């Protein structure tokens, strides 16, 4: 048996793997064993956080997942607000929702671009990556950068939205909702894509919960779980939206969940713009911010799933310990479960279907 197998390293210099290595053991073209080897971008964010104040921590904490940088910062500001006793004003909460949803769209479109390439549909790289620029421009209007915004701070957001933002955002959303219909026609219901994704990499409902799947991967397995509904943070309980859930648990369901989320995110942005109250956007305190002694745990729903921070403070301006729990790291346990006994040709479809972002997992 041992002689007949072949060990294959996919990554770290491989277009399909990114900054990550997947050690695959093959028998013929069937995968026998899989060992994920992360850590190529481990930069020690948790240790660095112990040397930086609550404000100085913001830039480096959003780097692990720059395509969803608001999503990773959201629980951090929630947890540090609890420790610093700085509740955000209502307008800031709506601006945060808009930024988080814009980022969800940006992140999903980037994923869709890469997924398109890896199931052999190059048009689906060019369309989403091009249309993603519309939303990047919107985010840049508010936060002044293309991807790394450093926009959320404990106590609110750094600046108010510009006056011409609401009109432009609604225009872009209306255009893009129409455009997504074309995406469905050309990609999601394309016979080629259906052949490559339907019935491939099936994750059953019980396994998904047991192995710790989260976010779209969990919802693709028929579990209705979303932190925005389970434990509404910020102002999500004022907004009316749905959680797309698909039952089959294969790659195609995970794609469709993300497609549904694109529609829902635009819906949320439109509602938030309408419901946004006026008022200040930041609850400021002068001087160096010091945390009260204690601990805080906050979780939010980022583009890839539940993002959580656990911060322990000992009354100093620096956190005593900061633990960052990211959804991509939880995907590691799914890989072996999904890839074993599949064909080699299905590895890209399954691996990228999980939306695993290696930098995020490595922290």
């Amino acid at each position, binding site marked *: 048996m041992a002689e007949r197998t072949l060990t294959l390293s996919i990554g770290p210099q491989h277009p399909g793997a990114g900054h990550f290595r997947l050690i695959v053991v093959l028998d013929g073209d069937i995968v026998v064993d899989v060992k994920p080897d992360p850590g190529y971008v481990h930069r020690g964010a948790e240790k660095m956080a112990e040397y930086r104040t609550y*404000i100085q921590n913001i830039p*480096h904490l959003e780097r692990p997942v720059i395509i969803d940088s608001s999503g990773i910062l959201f629980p951090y500001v929630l947890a540090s607000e609890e420790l610093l006793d700085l509740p955000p004003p209502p307008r800031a909460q709506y601006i945060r929702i808009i930024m988080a949803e814009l980022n969800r769209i940006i992140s999903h479109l980037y994923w869709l671009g890469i997924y398109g390439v890896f199931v052999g549909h190059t048009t689906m790289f060019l369309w989403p990556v091009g*249309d993603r620029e519309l939303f990047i421009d919107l985010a840049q209007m508010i936060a002044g950068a293309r991807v790394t915004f450093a926009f959320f701070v404990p106590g609110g957001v750094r*600046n*108010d939205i510009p006056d011409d933002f609401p009109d432009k955002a609604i225009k*872009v959303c209306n255009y893009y909702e129409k455009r997504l219909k074309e995406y469905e026609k050309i990609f999601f219901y394309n016979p080629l894509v259906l052949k490559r994704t339907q019935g491939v990499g099936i994750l059953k409902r019980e396994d998904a919960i047991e192995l710790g799947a989260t976010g779209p991967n969990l919802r693709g397995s028929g579990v209705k779980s979303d932190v925005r509904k389970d434990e509404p943070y910020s102002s999500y309980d004022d907004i009316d939206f749905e959680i797309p859930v698909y039952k089959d648990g294969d790659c195609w369901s995970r794609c469709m969940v993300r497609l549904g989320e694109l529609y829902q995110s635009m819906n949320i942005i439109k509602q938030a713009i309408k419901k946004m109250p006026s008022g200040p956007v930041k609850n400021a305190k*002068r001087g160096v911010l010091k945390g009260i002694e204690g601990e805080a745990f906050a979780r939010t729903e980022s583009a890839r799933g539940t993002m959580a921070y656990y911060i322990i403070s000992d009354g100093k301006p620096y956190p005593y310990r900061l633990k960052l729990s990211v959804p991509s790291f939880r995907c590691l346990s799914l890989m072996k479960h999904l890839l074993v006994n599949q064909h080699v040709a299905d590895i890209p479809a399954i691996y990228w279907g999980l939306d695993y972002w290696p930098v995020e997992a490595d922290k």
Partner: protein
Amino acid sequence: MSLAIDLISAINQAIKNLFKRRITLRYPEVNLDIERGYSYDPKAQVGIAGYKGRHILHLEKCTGCSLCAIACQNIANCIAMVKLDVSYPQNKKSIFPQIDYGNCVFCGFCVDACPFYALFMTNDHELSSTDKKSLIMSPLQLSIPPVKKKGLVQLEIDDRGPYHK
């Protein structure tokens, strides 16, 4: 039969996309119109939306308090206070920030830290260089406003798709 329908719908889709507009920004000839840079109002303690590009230093307002350097110390450690041969009444020691763009991450927290309206950000983002040393910008270089670019365009949307105008 179904194959024929699929084929026709595919061709139809392709023809429709022939008449779409192009989103490509012809970069060196035209530039994206970013109106202003990020600035901060220390009285209201809130920022004013804008692009976070390279900094601009108003020498006549900088007091050399080095609050920007302290704010940056643990973030990217790229601001150093250097002595200049100019004399301004508000800056007795004549020290001004010098920024190393090899390290700067354009987060703008130094702008938030400045209480004297002296340090803001501009919309200039083209800083590539073949030499590492020329990435370090002295206070005098920082005080020069960026050159106004030619061929400014913005992203517009109409029925035929997004395009630059």
